[in-house]
């Protein structure tokens, strides 16, 4: 709520500043509680809580939604009746969860998961080819109750194929394996100058947030705005070290995003436009003639690649290990499953944020289970929020 109050403050600050000579007293930080209003709608937080409290458990409605999302089809009349004929809520819950378990065991669940991961990864969907192996791997982990973290760490079996009902094991081509991070289809799909699109895909898909992602205290770098990063400002290249000035501050402070991007991108720069790993950097730059990128374009020689500040990762497998150890990545996985179940749009594209407290129970269970995907899906689809309307 502190953030929402801050946004509302921002939205009203034009008037406040101009009209009152910028006395700065309007809508300042209230200490973080945001307890008076909820999002500017005129409703208080207590009123939003009251609305939540007015929901009622409806296993009939939950079954229909679960059936469509998990199997792609409507429940049968017998399935509907197995709940609707019961009057006791506890018995309905048991019947619903029995059906949920059955849905998760059906072949159609695999197809649904394939669609979910194609949407999540924004790739695939054609005749089964390299573009589908990353979604297929994630779908296979979901169906087989594998670890979500295998998406970043698996050394083998990370490029399966899927024929609509069955997964066939396969390992990605190439000498570097780290779940889907070095997936040739993904590398091809997100090929771009400097490999920045690959970095953005990894960031937004698995950390659920756009750049800038590492935010620290404002530092005056004599530009149009302060530098808000956590890396030293000089930890990325300028046009004296490389050929591009990532420390430019004249229009926007590039380093706010590129402090992180430039420490990741070199790891993905060795994949060519077909997604094949090469021994030399194989992505172009937007400079005249589109020359290939060079390491010094990203970072000074004293720097190493990293997932985050003080989280070095000199190889893609090391990057995957760092991601797997990052609680924000686990939270993102839970949030994506949560949003899918509750019919939300993409968490990044539409900023459909899921507060930590909303999914704390599911995230705790996810972590203690070893990040098992199928168990997470069951937990979300059987949660209080899912069965209340």
């Amino acid at each position: 709520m502190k953030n929402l109050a801050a946004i509302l403050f921002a939205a009203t600050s034009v008037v406040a500043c101009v009209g009152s000579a910028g006395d700065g007293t309007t809508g300042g930080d209230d200490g973080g509680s945001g307890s008076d209003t909820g999002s500017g709608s005129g409703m208080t937080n207590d009123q939003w809580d009251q609305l939540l409290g007015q929901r009622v458990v409806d296993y009939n409605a939950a079954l229909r939604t679960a059936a469509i999302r998990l199997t792609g089809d409507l429940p049968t009349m017998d399935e509907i009746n197995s709940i609707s004929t019961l009057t006791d809520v506890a018995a309905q819950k048991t019947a619903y969860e029995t059906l949920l378990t059955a849905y998760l065991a059906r072949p159609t669940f695999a197809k649904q998961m394939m669609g979910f991961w194609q949407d999540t990864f924004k790739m695939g969907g054609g005749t089964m080819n390299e573009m589908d192996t990353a979604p297929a791997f994630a779908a296979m982990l979901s169906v087989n109750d594998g670890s979500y973290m295998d998406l970043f760490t698996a050394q083998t079996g990370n490029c399966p194929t899927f024929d609509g009902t069955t997964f066939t094991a396969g390992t990605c081509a190439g000498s570097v394996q780290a779940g889907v991070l070095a997936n040739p289809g993904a590398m091809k799909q997100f090929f771009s100058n400097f490999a920045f699109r690959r970095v953005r895909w990894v960031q937004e898909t698995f950390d659920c947030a756009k750049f800038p992602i590492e935010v620290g205290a404002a530092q005056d770098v004599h530009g149009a705005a302060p530098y808000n990063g956590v890396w030293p400002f000089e930890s990325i290249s300028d046009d004296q070290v490389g050929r591009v000035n990532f420390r430019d501050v004249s229009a926007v402070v590039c380093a706010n995003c590129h402090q992180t991007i430039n420490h990741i991108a070199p790891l993905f720069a060795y994949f060519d436009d077909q997604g094949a790993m090469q021994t030399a950097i194989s992505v172009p730059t937007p400079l005249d003639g589109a020359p290939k990128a060079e390491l010094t374009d990203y970072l000074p020689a004293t720097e190493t690649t990293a997932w985050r500040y003080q989280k070095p990762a000199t190889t893609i497998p090391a990057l995957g290990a760092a991601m797997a150890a990052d609680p924000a990545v686990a939270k993102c996985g839970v949030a994506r499953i949560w949003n899918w179940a509750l019919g939300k749009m993409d968490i990044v594209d539409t900023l459909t944020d899921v507060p930590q407290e909303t999914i704390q129970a599911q995230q705790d269970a996810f972590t203690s289970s070893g990040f098992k995907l199928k168990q997470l899906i069951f937990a979300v689809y059987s949660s209080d929020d899912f069965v209340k309307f």
Partner: protein
Amino acid sequence: MKNLNLIFVAAVSTLGLVACVDNTLSEDPPPPEGTSPGTAGAGTDNTFDHENDGISPWELVDRLTKEGPPRYTSHVHSCSKVRYANLGNVLKSVGINTTNTMQLSAGQLYTSGFNAMGGPNYDNRIRESISVSTSGASRMFDIFAAGATEVMTAVPTLQRCMSGGTPAVLFDANGQCQKSGITCIIGTPATDAHVSLCNLSVTSASTPEIGKRLAVAAILAAAYTCE
């Protein structure tokens, strides 16, 4: 919440430039010619112009005002459209032939409605849109209207809707709507209100047959506005 933080930073920065330019930022150097503050557009001696925009804070505030804060919205179901592939399964499940190629048949409207209904475009890194759009909802309603007769014919024979060997019935011999048939096509137990509205549609139409088609199409349209 970190995203919201960043939006806040962006909003404050942007608005600050507008509101307080005469004092706070007067000592900063102006942006290079051809660029504007807060964008990643570049001058001739810099790199290249690239997308650097996020969600408009104004749009976000508007959404939060209408829908409520995340601490509320994250707990409740949203009204997402029925995904394209799922809609195909549902249509088959209620007795519509989705392979029918006859012009303006329900099947033809479905198979030709991929883009109108927001299907994914993975080649361009675009996921399926699950928001309810005017074009998508219109096409779906057209499909239900075109397929209503197929549905009425099929319901008594649908294996999915059999209960203990007894088929579902959408309309009885007197043309009255029946709960079992409505339950069959909406996928959740029909209520008395469903039956009343269905009967009202039938009796209000110019003929009973048209009324039945309207009733079935309206029930389906209402049931599948949200997945």
